[in-house]
């Protein structure tokens, strides 16, 4: 399956990329996806995860075609 991965704000700086395209067979959670794509980085404090633009937990399962985003706490307004 193919998953689009996005990084925003300070997490983009930390990862050094804006986006990844992830191709994979079999089940995977959002958290496992992060660790697989960023094996050398510690789990960021307070990292937020969205799947298809809705907030999700790190153990949420991914489906083919999903858009997953990782970002720090929001600071708008």
């Amino acid at each position: 399956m193919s998953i689009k991965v996005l990084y925003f704000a300070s997490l983009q700086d930390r990862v050094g990329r804006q986006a990844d395209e992830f191709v994979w067979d079999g089940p995977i959670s959002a958290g496992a996806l992060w660790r697989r794509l960023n094996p050398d980085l510690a789990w960021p404090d307070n990292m937020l995860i969205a799947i298809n633009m809705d907030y999700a937990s790190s153990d949420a399962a991914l489906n083919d075609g999903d858009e997953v985003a990782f970002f720090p706490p929001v600071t708008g307004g």
Partner: protein
Amino acid sequence: MTIRIVEQTFEPWSLLADYERFELAENIGKYGAAAVFVGSMRDFNLGDGVIGMTLHHYPGMTEKQLAAILVDANSRWALLDTLVIHRVGEVQPGDTLVLVAAWAEHRGDAFDASRYIMEALKSRAPFWKRETLAAGQSRWVEKNSDGYKV
């Protein structure tokens, strides 16, 4: 129920005047209360002078989350209309960052809803601020204040 993400400076008060004139014309005499919040960029933060800021967002998710917040607010209070406008891109001190407005028959609903929308936006809408300090460097704003304490 209107949501706009804007890349240019906007003047909140004339925008509200136009919004009432064009979008709420049928509701004149129906709403007794409008509660409005306008957030502006300050020229200092955490003890440092700030000379500029870049507002980042997640196109698509930002609009989706703001819409969900307005749907929530409309389900909790009796509202005639709600409006959220948020700036993105390069901003200067004094620029308007956000405008939230709620119209209702009665003031309790308008007050409650405007504050709820603003707090929900601060905690759920994917925007991020990067400040440029007077001393030259820039930094990500780490987290928002909670809105209930000074």
